[in-house]
């Protein structure tokens, strides 16, 4: 039994599975990181220059630029920071701009391995440069960037995959990657909530149910108006103890499949309230985006397929020119940009391409495909691109024509 348990744990942590969750995490974290860096860049001079509030020597003192090795020695080790000792503002600004560029490339999933590592190094360096302005969202952002750098986050939902499929360098079969980075994200998240719940419980205000009364009255945090009763008793007891219960659940019960979606939904509602009522930019978005890692990639793909099945009125049929068929690599490409499986490619009888909705009405080909293929939204709007893609996607049917290749089947969802 011990051996079976050990094998089960090993499979859970180091088994192989779909990287879809990691791909979606990559898109969310990288996009939010770019937004955060762009927001910071507005006051770049104040925060990162030698004439700012925190020149580099003071930033080093605040965080401690070196880490002690200990064991009775005086040896120290530097923190990772590409900005150590850099006082030239031009270099620092160029580094900042390159980090933002790395974030954009990572969000799109282009040259993902290099861009995600560059993004992680950039974010770590920028945060180590000036830690005096960091809040909890920045920590989530830094950890998220590091996790997507060490994970195979570019294996799916990425331009890299699309290019690989189009060129025939990647098999269209579902990709399988080791799951340990995704597990790390979930356990780090659980650690966050466990630690914060534990720390809160040591405070008297959380124990007596009055804690949420006070931040609601801090003018510096005011954002959008909230109904008065929410910040008054007895509702304050509900928000205070509710916060503790939800956070503790996000550290424990979230791993229990039957309760997972309810716990995550409570977490989303809790963070939505924080985002709405308090001015803590991007924190809620960042932490909620990591919730995706509690779902297996196969579950996400199956969920998308079920949504597509239900939305029958959005389905379209794309008819190929007569006696033409899709090239095998094009099948994989077009399939991968349509996660909801609502675009169907069928043999046609007319000279050119045609597109028709479920009610038989026709519509322009390019618009029909790219509006429904979520994966093509980053390039599908470009004028003329669909003509080129579709031209290169087809080949004449052989005389002994083989049936069209079947689309890869969805993985069965674990409910």
């Amino acid at each position: 039994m011990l051996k079976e348990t050990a094998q089960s744990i090993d499979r859970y942590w180091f088994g192989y599975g779909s990287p879809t969750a990691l791909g979606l995490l990559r898109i969310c974290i990288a996009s939010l990181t770019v937004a955060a860096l762009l927001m910071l860049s507005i006051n770049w001079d104040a925060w990162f220059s030698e004439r700012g509030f925190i020149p580099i020597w003071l930033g080093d003192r605040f965080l401690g630029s070196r880490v002690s090795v200990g064991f009775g020695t005086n040896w120290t080790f530097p923190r990772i920071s590409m900005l150590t000792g850099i006082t030239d503002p031009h270099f620092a600004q160029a580094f900042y701009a390159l980090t933002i560029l790395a974030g954009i490339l990572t969000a799109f999933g282009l040259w993902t391995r290099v861009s995600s590592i560059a993004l992680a190094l950039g974010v770590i360096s920028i945060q180590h440069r000036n830690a005096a302005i960091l809040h909890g969202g920045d920590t989530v952002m830094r950890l998220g960037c590091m996790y997507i750098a060490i994970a195979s986050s570019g294996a799916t939902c990425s331009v890299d995959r699309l290019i690989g499929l189009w060129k025939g360098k990647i098999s269209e079969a579902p990709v399988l990657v080791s799951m340990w980075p995704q597990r790390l994200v979930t356990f780090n998240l659980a650690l966050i909530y466990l630690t914060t719940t534990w720390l809160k419980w040591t405070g008297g205000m959380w124990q007596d149910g009055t804690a949420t009364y006070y931040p609601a009255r801090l003018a510096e945090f005011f954002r959008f108006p909230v109904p008065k009763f929410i910040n008054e008793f007895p509702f304050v007891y509900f928000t205070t103890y509710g916060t503790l219960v939800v956070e503790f659940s996000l550290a424990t019960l979230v791993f229990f499949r039957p309760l997972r979606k309810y716990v995550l939904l409570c977490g989303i509602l809790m963070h939505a309230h924080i985002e709405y009522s308090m001015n803590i930019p991007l924190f809620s978005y960042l932490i909620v985006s990591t919730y995706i890692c509690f779902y297996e990639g196969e579950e996400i793909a199956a969920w998308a397929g079920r949504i597509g099945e239900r939305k029958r009125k959005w389905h379209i049929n794309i008819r190929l020119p007569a006696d033409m068929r899709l090239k095998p690599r094009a099948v994989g490409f077009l399939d991968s940009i349509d996660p909801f499986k609502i675009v169907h490619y069928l043999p046609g009888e007319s000279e050119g391409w045609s597109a028709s909705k479920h009610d038989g009405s026709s519509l322009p080909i390019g618009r029909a495909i790219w509006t429904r293929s979520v994966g093509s939204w980053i390039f599908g709007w470009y004028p003329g691109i669909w003509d080129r893609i579709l031209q290169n996607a087809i080949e004449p049917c052989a005389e002994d024509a083989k049936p069209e290749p079947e689309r890869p089947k969805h993985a069965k969802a674990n409910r």
Partner: protein
Amino acid sequence: MPQPPSAIKQHRVTPGGTEWINYWDDKYLRTFPPIDMYLHFTGFWQYWDMFAPNPSHSDIYGDAEVIYKDGTVKRYIYPRMYDLSIPQKFFKERYRKFFERAGSDDYVYLFPSFALRVALEMDNPANPPVRVKMIRHWKAVAGPGKPQPKEYGSYNYFTYEVDQKELARVRKL
């Protein structure tokens, strides 16, 4: 992990129940060099003490008085979130976060640099600032059932005699 209560750290009280976990974590893991080194070197360090152990119950903001060479006095308005529009406060939240530290007596070593930046932002090379008085405005949130105070208290927590050489140096940067 949360730190154990000071009474436990000082061995005045024996830990009980889950307090043993905090005690061992603080004694053996928190400052275990390889773990500490790994976390701080790589950037995996993390603290999750938002609104913990108790949320802040003081509303605080800051500004400054800048005294010039000819004796004139001007007020430096440090961005105060309450006075900004919703989009503005979204982008400038870093100022609030910075003042949470730079306006606190726990970070006295930040005060001179903070004041120097204020002098730079209010600078006039023909009539340079000679003194900057950093002011903290605060209002304690009254407990449940008690009337909330309307007025803020003010306190000059730091006065900086502007180093003119330093100001001239940063002026050129």
